[in-house]
């Protein structure tokens, strides 16, 4: 009952947030100077041509009535037509979404592995130089944002020791007519391991750049929770039972230490997704973020609206999911 009420409350605030985002974006981008219609017509176009096309995109109406038309469309699944490519916004956005999702999830997985390993190694070597080294590395990783890590990785593994690809998503000569946008999964499903390796070697550096700050946060927080848990009586008890250090850390302390990290990872994951915008640009990776920057540069109003709304939906969706997971896992909230 309590859980249901929490769920409905959160659903309502999520809806309010999304509506707020939609309103802000819609009005902000309509202040943009420069007529996008005039930009898409050839230089010889007449005034009448511009007016006709402006009317076609509904840009001749007042801004509030444009907003109403747009909202009606969105609620019916129609996000309008891109001005530059003349394709439906929804198709364009959904076409790019898989690339960004694959990249974000890959980064998340690497972050959990790296951060988890750092926390475990640091806990295993409590009070030694090893823990000190991990703390320093964590601090460095946290201080510098993904954009700079991306550039450093490009220098290291794209130029100095060129082992990975630094631009694109797949080598063009290898590109198959993929039926889904999920290249990584599809190449595996088709048992094309050469293709899979090629895609991974394109994705690895951007994914690493995205995951380094998150990995550091996971490492820091999990290590701290582990450390606190290691002092609890039940852990001491299991030690007196004769279990080894590895068993104590992994089996006894970890399950109890992991919850705070889990909630934080959820929130931080949205920051990671936000980071894809510039990282995709940096690595010329054909995802949503790259599309978004092009849309802004080309003043493609319907496309900008669609992308920002999708990003906001992903952000709030992830946060909603985290809150609900937390509520479901936390017995105090569960029984109200």
């Amino acid at each position, binding site marked *: 009952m309590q859980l249901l009420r929490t769920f409905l409350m959160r659903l309502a605030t999520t809806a309010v947030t999304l509506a*707020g985002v939609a309103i802000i974006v819609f009005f902000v981008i309509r202040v943009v100077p420069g007529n996008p219609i005039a930009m898409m017509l050839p230089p010889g176009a007449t005034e009448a041509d511009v007016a006709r096309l402006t009317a076609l995109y509904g840009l001749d109406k007042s801004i509030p009535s444009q907003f109403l038309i747009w909202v009606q469309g969105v609620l019916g699944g129609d996000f309008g037509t891109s001005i530059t490519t003349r394709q439906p916004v929804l198709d364009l956005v959904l076409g790019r979404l898989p690339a960004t999702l694959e990249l974000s999830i890959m980064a998340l997985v690497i972050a959990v592995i790296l951060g988890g390993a750092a926390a475990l190694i640091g806990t295993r070597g409590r*009070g030694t130089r090893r823990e000190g080294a991990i703390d320093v590395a964590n601090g460095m990783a946290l*201080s510098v944002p993904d954009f700079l890590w991306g550039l450093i990785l490009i*220098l290291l593994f794209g130029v100095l020791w060129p082992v990975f690809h630094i631009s694109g998503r797949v080598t063009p000569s290898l590109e198959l007519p993929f039926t889904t946008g999920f290249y990584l999964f599809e190449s595996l499903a088709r048992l094309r391991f050469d293709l899979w390796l090629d895609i991974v070697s394109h994705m690895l550096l951007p994914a690493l750049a995205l995951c380094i700050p998150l990995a550091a946060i996971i490492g820091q927080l999990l290590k701290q929770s582990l450390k606190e848990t290691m002092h609890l009586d039940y852990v001491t008890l299991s030690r007196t039972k004769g279990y080894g250090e590895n068993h104590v850390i992994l089996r006894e302390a970890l399950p109890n230490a992991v919850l705070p990290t889990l909630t934080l990872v959820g929130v931080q994951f949205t920051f990671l997704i936000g980071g894809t915008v510039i990282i995709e640009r940096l690595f010329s990776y054909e995802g949503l973020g790259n599309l978004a920057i092009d849309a802004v540069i080309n003043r493609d109003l319907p496309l900008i609206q669609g992308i920002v709304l999708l*990003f906001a939906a992903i952000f709030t969706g992830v946060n909603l999911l985290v809150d609900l997971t937390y509520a479901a896992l936390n017995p105090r909230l569960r029984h109200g």
Partner: protein
Amino acid sequence: MVDLTDGRGRVRRRAGVRLWLSGLWLGLLVVVALLAPWIAPKDPLAQDLFLGRLPPFWVAGSEPGYWLGTDSLGRDVLSRIMHGARIALLVALIAGTVTGLLGATLGLLAGFLRGWVDVVISRMIDIWMAFPPVLFSILLIAVLGPGLTSIIIAIVVIDWTRFARVIRAEAMAQGAMDYVASSRVAGRGRLGTMVEEILPNVLPTIVVLLTLEMGIAVIVEAILSFVNLSISTDDPTWGGMIAEGRSAIHQSWWVLVFPLATLFLTVLSFSQLGEGLKDRFDPVLR
């Protein structure tokens, strides 16, 4: 075996070194930025196509006077970095301060006054957090038009939530304490209590956040220059240099490496300074 966590002296010493090193680098940067027109070896805008893509001084084929080489248009990399420091620090200082003022004020109001003020500000924070920040900043620059003022406005508009969120929580915690109640009992008004009792107690946090924000502002400026939306493309900015270096990375690595290293050290210094100050202010560690 060196215990880094329990030995209090050890933690303090490390924090001290951190503070000094980052302070030293930032101080150097400020001096360079202030004196750039006089100490930069070349004109940062002067192009010379005959001197394009010169390597740095220790590599064969370099020209004397161009210490860190030149870019594809023959502009001196070192001089451009020095002049770029002016823009980076200006943005850090102004954008950081204004963001801090706005965000901290809203956070204080929300956390201390509660009620409908808190509802409105918190809901705004929620909406802001649902925007991807990089995309938001690019969008704002597209609206405002390129230029230094636009960058500063964009940073303020996007990042005030960083301050507001933290200061709201702190003000809420402080507001529940006895000294606040006794200040009210002693006859001080709500706003008076907020400014005279709560503000001094959250000030250390504001200073820490401000330092961190300056590092973020430098990065945002670099990112916007990188996507070519910062100031005019001629003006030397670190981000603009990095963008050029990225595109010519196989021909002239130095065009990317030197501005990147400068940016890296600067961002690292701001963040280490912030963390160091946080430890300093932390009563538990002190």
